[in-house]
């Protein structure tokens, strides 16, 4: 018998535990030409806010050793246009849709969450708290524990949908943030968002990104992500979606062993838009080769003793 890759996370049943990470598959259409969305666990769409935003000026991305920096600036079409124009396309597929939401104020998070409540085709929310809090001088919501608590409370009150909080890695003690989210009723945690970084061109003395700083992703951040998934898994009972630099099946296995119940593939989609299918097939073979029947046998199984 084939090993069982299905998993239920935050009340959402997934065919397999491999998702497309937010901001790396837009609203599904472009990647669907390369990757059969019926065969992935879930798609987490590009961040959605209340109102449309254009994003940052170029250059928005640059490559760094084994990774990339981005300051795309969260361009988005606004929640109403998303529901009307983008969601119908995703409904055609037999997969799960998690809507990644963000806001520039705590209240905006609640409003966006509220608009998505009861909308056909939305299986859950992933809440990006790594974006700038406009009222508090642009500091990311997710780096302040009090504001993180208020965002989770606000979203929790606004919706009955599963709520997954996407933690920022740009904090000293990620476990304490995870605990606050659990206390306020989050159903799951995504770990991790990008690490704040910067790169300068020695020829021109200019930052390589117009925004000066940007988010680091790709294999370069994997050890940090693994450490954080492990710390969060040990701190809370709610499930963790692990991400950060996954390119191969072995990379994904590392995340399960550290405590992730599912994984999301981000930057690797840019290198090979089919990679998430290859990884879910790879996971099946990995389990088979180890004589394991169920993906759950890997979760948190790292031998630290």
């Amino acid at each position, binding site marked *: 018998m084939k090993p069982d890759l299905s998993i239920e996370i935050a009340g959402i049943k997934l065919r397999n535990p491999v998702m497309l990470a937010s*901001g*790396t*598959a*837009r609203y599904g259409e*472009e*990647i669907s*030409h*390369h990757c059969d969305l019926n065969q992935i666990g879930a798609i987490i769409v*590009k*961040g959605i806010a209340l109102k449309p*935003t*254009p*994003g*940052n*000026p*170029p*250059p*928005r*991305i*640059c*490559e760094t*050793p*084994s*990774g*990339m920096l*981005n*300051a*795309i*600036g*969260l*361009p988005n079409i606004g929640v109403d246009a998303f529901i009307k124009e983008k969601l119908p396309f995703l409904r055609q597929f037999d997969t799960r849709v998690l809507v990644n939401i*963000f806001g520039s104020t705590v209240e905006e998070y609640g409003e966006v969450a509220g608009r998505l409540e009861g909308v056909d085709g939305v299986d859950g929310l992933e809440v*990006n708290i*790594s*974006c*700038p809090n406009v009222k508090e001088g*642009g500091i*990311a919501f997710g780096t302040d524990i009090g504001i993180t608590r208020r965002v989770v409370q606000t979203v929790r009150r606004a919706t009955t949908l599963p709520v997954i909080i996407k933690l920022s890695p740009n904090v000293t003690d990620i476990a304490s943030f995870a605990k606050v989210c659990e206390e306020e009723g989050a159903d799951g945690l995504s770990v991790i*968002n*990008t690490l704040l970084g910067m790169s300068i061109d020695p020829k021109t003395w200019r930052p390589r990104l117009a*925004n000066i*700083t940007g*988010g680091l992703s*790709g*294999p*370069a951040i994997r050890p940090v992500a693994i450490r954080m998934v492990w710390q969060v898994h040990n701190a809370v009972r709610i499930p963790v979606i692990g991400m950060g630099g996954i*390119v*191969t099946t072995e990379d994904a296995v590392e995340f399960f062993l550290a405590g992730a119940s599912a994984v999301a593939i981000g*930057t690797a*989609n*840019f*290198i*090979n*838009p089919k990679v998430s299918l290859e990884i879910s097939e790879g996971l099946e073979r990995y389990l088979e080769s180890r004589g394991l029947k169920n993906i759950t046998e890997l979760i948190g199984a790292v031998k630290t003793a």
Partner: protein
Amino acid sequence: MKAKIISNSCVKGPCYKLLLKPLNPVKSVPGQFLMIRPGASDGPSDPLLPRPFSIHRATTDDHIEVLYKRVGKGTAILASLSAEGELEILGPLGNGFVFDGVAAAKEVVVVAGGIGVAPMLGLVETLRAGYPEKEIRVFLGGRGEVDLLCVEELKAVSTEVILATNDGTMGFKGYVTEALEKHLSQSLITHHSSLVTPIIYACGPSPMLQRISEITEPLRIESYFSLEANMACGIGLCMGCAIRSRDGKGYYLVCTDGPVFRGESVDLSGNPPQSPFNKGGD
């Protein structure tokens, strides 16, 4: 998709020509591009991302030529690859050049700066085949003689090739846009009674394209630019390849909305935007 390397050799200075045979035949139009992963396909993490390259020429026997300049890590790896090897490619991508205005145009003017000539040979060959009677003038610019590529090939399929170098080592001494301006002012004087104007296709550094805009827009000349931007995916996933639109409201994506744009639709100035733009965030 896998592609077999048929040949890969230095053309001139730091520029190379790569001849590929894709596993499955690829149908492309001039101006489209490929994403090519430098190095082995089994996940090297440095360099990480595939690189965008124009389709220089699509041959009748399903081969694809890429003309590239060694500028950094990825292109250095490409330059080191030998025939018989394999590469991972994705494409053809992007929109390609539009020919709607060609039939009505007085002449076709093609402007290329440096390695910007890469998509232009295929373009000129296609134009010549489709419009055998049309005058096609090619302006090739570079800092010096070493930057001028494909001169003989272009001569074979165009009415005239005008060369310009900043150091005067070949052709007109100065910017290629100065040579272009001279030509346009002369040809417009001789044709001042008619409204028939040339159509322009250009590829090269942003300042060159911007200068072409300044010259051609007051004359209402239809122009098409093939643009470059830093790219991660080439297929519209990352939104990294933004170019500001002229209406000031937003951005186009070079990989899916382009790489070919109407000259007057894009803002190449590099000036900070007027509207309150979002800061930070992925």
